[in-house]
């Protein structure tokens, strides 16, 4: 079990940080109590991980061949990358940190599946774009349906609140299904875990992060979405969930935060307003490059450190 400590920490921090993307707006606006949101998110994350988490695991484990010690190195390297970047208040994507670490170990082994890596990086660039397209479509379709509803302002509020809970739960499901591979895929590749136990352990560690440490992030990060009107906030959560779920089907773990930014841009496009600053866009670009590079470097350093041998002088 000690071998899984790094993975557990990674899953825990992923849950603590990324739950805000699905339930942040509902919690920070007090539409939903934190406890209810956290329980819903935890349940749906585990469900998503167990039911649909295997595709991402297959992709990540196929990037390079690893033994157990290399799997431990790569999971710790990713965990350290996420922690360092969070402490430095830099935007970070767990998916990119994990892939960076796997590539770092792969380069040390001189063994990389380049086509798999190409697919993964292409999907990173496509994540904000996917969030944006999904938001435009969801806004148009849901907006048309919403306008047809014969409900008054009071019922419309209850409808929006209910829809946000449903969309958040779906988002949590997609988060679990998509991101569980980041947590435990390397251990499946090393033959240490079966795919089922990897999805279960990964899902539970993400859920623990949500239940124990996501409150602060949910309340602060959710306020970014609350600047949007309630309907737009619903569109953003739903579009992010759809986008992340689609990448789950393709089998590539992506950043939920970047899908959210894409969705916010999409809402802005429909409404003809600027919703995302250049600085936020700059942060995404920075995260695309800095996170995997740092993950790879830390993995390489840890790999070298693991192979150092004490040679007595003389």
């Amino acid at each position: 079990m000690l071998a899984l400590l790094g993975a557990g920490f990674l899953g825990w921090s992923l849950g603590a940080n990324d739950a805000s993307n699905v339930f942040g707006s509902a919690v920070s606006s007090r539409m939903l109590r934190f406890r209810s949101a956290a329980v819903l998110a935890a349940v749906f994350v585990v469900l998503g991980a167990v039911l649909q988490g295997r595709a991402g695991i297959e992709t990540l484990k196929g990037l390079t061949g690893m033994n157990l010690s290399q799997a431990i190195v790569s999971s710790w390297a990713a965990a350290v990358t996420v922690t360092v970047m969070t402490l430095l208040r830099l935007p970070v994507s767990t998916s990119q940190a994990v892939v960076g670490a796997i590539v770092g170990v792969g380069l040390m082994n001189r063994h990389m599946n380049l086509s798999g890596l190409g697919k993964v990086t292409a999907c990173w660039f496509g994540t904000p774009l996917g969030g944006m397209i999904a938001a435009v479509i969801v806004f148009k379709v849901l907006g048309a349906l919403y306008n047809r509803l014969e409900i008054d302002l009071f019922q419309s509020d209850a409808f929006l609140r209910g829809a946000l809970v449903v969309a958040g739960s779906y988002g949590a499901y997609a988060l679990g299904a998509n991101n569980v591979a980041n947590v435990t895929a390397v251990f499946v590749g090393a033959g240490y875990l079966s795919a089922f136990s990897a999805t279960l352990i990964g899902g539970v560690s993400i859920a623990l992060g949500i239940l124990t440490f996501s409150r602060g992030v949910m309340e602060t990060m959710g306020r970014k979405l609350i600047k949007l009107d309630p309907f737009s906030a619903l569109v953003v959560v739903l579009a992010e969930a759809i986008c992340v779920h689609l990448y789950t089907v393709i089998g590539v773990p992506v950043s939920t935060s970047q899908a959210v930014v894409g969705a916010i841009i999409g809402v802005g496009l429909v409404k003809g307003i600027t919703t995302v600053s250049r600085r936020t866009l700059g942060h995404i670009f920075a995260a695309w490059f800095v996170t995997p590079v740092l993950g790879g470097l830390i993995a390489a350093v840890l790999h070298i450190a693991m192979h150092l041998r004490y040679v007595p002088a003389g």
Partner: protein
Amino acid sequence: MVMIRPVAVGVVHEFEGVMLKIFFKKEEELKALVYEYLKNVANIEAHFSKAMEIFLEQGMCDDCGFLTEQTHKHESRADDIREEINLLMYGKALIPESREDIMRLLEAVDEIPRRMELVLYMIQTQKLAVPDFIIPDTRELIQVSLQSCDLMAKQIDLMLRKKDGVKELMDTIDQNESHCDHIERRIISKVFDSNLDPFEKMQLKEMAVYLGEISDQADRVSKRVNIIAIKRRV
């Protein structure tokens, strides 16, 4: 078939109504309170209108005093309902944005009964007497102001039911407000052109200004309602 269809439609509507009450219990409770508040404001307006009519015909009398007290009673009740609404909203009814909108809207509406009460108390406590030469204008000012209040209530109802026509009503209320401004200026000019005692002139000017503020406030409320309706458009 022809006989069955209307019955079936009726049953479906009945079912929808029951389902809405189950799923939107707090919201239904809140809706009932908001409409009760608006009904209470309409009662205040009715009492104010009657009190002013009697005052303009007979001067301050017992009936007028009674109606003034009734206006005060309804105004206090309106405050109580508003408090209940706020408590219910902060007990998680409505989303935060709507809570703030409704709270601020009712605060703004509440200024209207407050001004009506102010006019009646002014007449009662300052033993005001309105000279004949400004009575027709004062009647017109009251009538147009109350018409604006009625339109404002209709506009709020349309906004709450998410129906069209909010902007059109705002335009009419805006026109009424300009009209009231003209009447108010006319009354003040007539008062100051007269040979009345300067102290009486000041009293009558104050009354005309307070009466004019009713349509001003209705106009402010209607603009707020229009913004709330625009914000909710998808």
